[in-house]
């Protein structure tokens, strides 16, 4: 998995410029998220993709040509921390199974954020592999609905992507 973090101007249409380029040049990304940063006027776009190093390098070079992209870099997974949030609604009408689910949630350090007579809604934060593993377990109980945020990431240590 490759993680690309871009600091972009916070103004209308910038996300379009970025995604338009990704589509036009035939890159295939797995996740993309956008949100605010520590600096006013800048947003952070985090993308993940699979593929050759050369493909990632080409994507980074092409994106950096967009005038709205202020800074862009690849974050090596080994040198960064990254997290994803998933919200999972699981079918749980049977009390016995419900307690099994609650056990798994504890093991995976998730939280129940909503419950009804027939279902539990779980919040799970972590790296995508952990979320995938938890989801595999939940499939046995019946996943009613799933929403994932995609990955956000920061480099390890005290440096900021927006420096330099």
């Amino acid at each position, binding site marked *: 998995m490759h993680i690309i973090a871009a600091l972009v101007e916070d103004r209308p*249409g910038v996300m379009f410029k970025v995604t338009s380029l990704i589509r036009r040049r035939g890159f295939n990304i797995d996740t993309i998220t956008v949100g605010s940063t520590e600096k006013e006027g800048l947003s952070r776009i985090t993308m993940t993709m699979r593929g050759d190093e050369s493909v990632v390098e080409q994507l980074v070079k092409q994106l950096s040509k967009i005038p709205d992209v202020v800074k862009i870099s690849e974050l090596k997974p080994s040198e960064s921390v990254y997290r994803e949030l998933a919200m999972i609604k699981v079918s749980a009408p049977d009390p016995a199974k419900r307690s099994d689910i609650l056990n798994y949630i504890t093991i995976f350090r998730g939280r129940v954020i909503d419950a009804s007579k027939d279902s539990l809604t779980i919040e799970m934060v972590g790296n995508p592999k952990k979320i995938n593993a938890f989801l595999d377990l939940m499939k046995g109980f019946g996943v009613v609905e799933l929403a994932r945020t995609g990955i956000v990431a920061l480099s390890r240590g005290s440096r900021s992507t927006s420096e330099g």
Partner: protein
Amino acid sequence: MKLSGAKAIVEALKREKVEVIFGIPGGSTIPFYDALYESDLRHVLARHEQCAAHMADGYARVKGVPGVCTATSGPGATNLVTGIAVAYMDSSPIIAITGQVPRSMIGKDAFQEADIVGITTPITKYAFQVTSASQIPDAIRTAFLLASTNRRGPVLVDVPKDVQLEEVDPDYPERIMIKGYVIRSGDPHPYSIKKALGLIMSSERPLIIAGGGVIASNCSEELVKFAELILAPVATTLMGKGAIPENHPLSLGMVGMHGRGEANKAVEEADLIIAVGMRFGDRTTGKLDEFARNSKIIHIDIDPAEIGKNIRVDVPIVADAKKALSILHSKLLEVGSKRTESEWIKRINSLKESFASNYTERGDGLKPSRLMKILRDCIPAKSIITTGVGQNQMWAALHFRVLEPRTFITSGGLGAMGFGLPAAIGAKVASPDRPVFNIDGDGSFLMTEQDLATAVSEALPVISIILKNRALGMVRQWQCLFCNKRYAHTDLGNVPDFVKLAEAYGAEGIRIESYESFESAVKKSLKAEMPVVMEIQISPDEKVLPMVPPGKGLKEVIWYG
């Protein structure tokens, strides 16, 4: 001082030293045109917005400064699209100013509303909308800065009608900072220069391939000096024609799908390719796996994204071609590396001799290759050639020897038929003292023929040479060679009489039926005061040869069709 947004645009354009705008007014640009009415900016009224964009492009390529075109919202703006895409593919600096429906109506599917920023984002260096009149000074400065620095390209500025009417006290910036855009110094990295020097000095068979970047960087002189120093023959891409005078002993002509035999053979035999300002496009390389298999590659380009995009190179030099070539030249002189003779040059010369007979004309009828040679012999070196797209363009590229940079203007990357006439008009506006010839085909000419009216109204004596084969010739050629002569819909049927057509527009029409009459018509046209259209009947079976079939390596060339 308060003025309208429209006037603020005109003032900003004047500060950018714009002399002429190509365009057509419409509902959403009425305020802008009202401001133009009282300004001394020249306006050339096109008859189709596509042509306005091509004119701005032709102007930009001849002058080396941004060309400006304008269109109204909706259909006016969408008509610009082909012209903008041409400029994008060929890295030509044009500024397109479009009108837009008033801000309150955007997104409501208002009359003549089109999302032109969305439409042109993939084919511009940058496209953006001005959302208040106070942004205009910065917006126009930004547009010119982006279009004319680093790798050049088109920029679109979309201005809603009510922004044009809004009162503003404009504050024009001298300089502007764009956080995400660094103007490159163009200086090469010393390490890559060192590596390149090593490859150059150990090479026995160096070959230079010059692209459009050499023209854009105005470094023909440096290129020739460098080539002479290391005794490297110079092939060019289509866009690179003019980078070296094609009568220079080291010139090999164009390389690629319709490249000259000697140029393609040199690519195969070279042990070092120095690619300058070119992007290894498929029409240049043929099948990539087989391109330059025996050679190391040094790639000089101002755009870092071009490095490694299509091909792996041994030494990348991200730099302005002019700076890179001058430094390489002076470093080589420092170490006293100068070649005076080489086996390689003897080999190149024997290749040229052995292929020479392949270009001689065979059979009856007027031959495009001979016409191109006659044209070259009859007109001054500084004359500007534009072309349509298709066979006419490739005949010009193969057989018309370009002697100066910025005198061969063609739609290279996009290959947009109809480019020739409007580009010629733009070129003539840019350089009124030089003869401008549009080498065109009948199919291509008919795509933008209405702008003869512009040339006549503006009294611009551009000369169109129409090679009339009553067919969409290049596609027909492919059908002949690769589709078993199944000529699906490439016969143009009833093609107009171009002599009468020219006369109907108020231009001069001449029917050419012999090489002699062509020669005298060309000589006479040099003094023309109004546009001229020459109609030259050629056979639809006439082919552009040699040709490397699509998807094949450069050595799998076809010489006879």
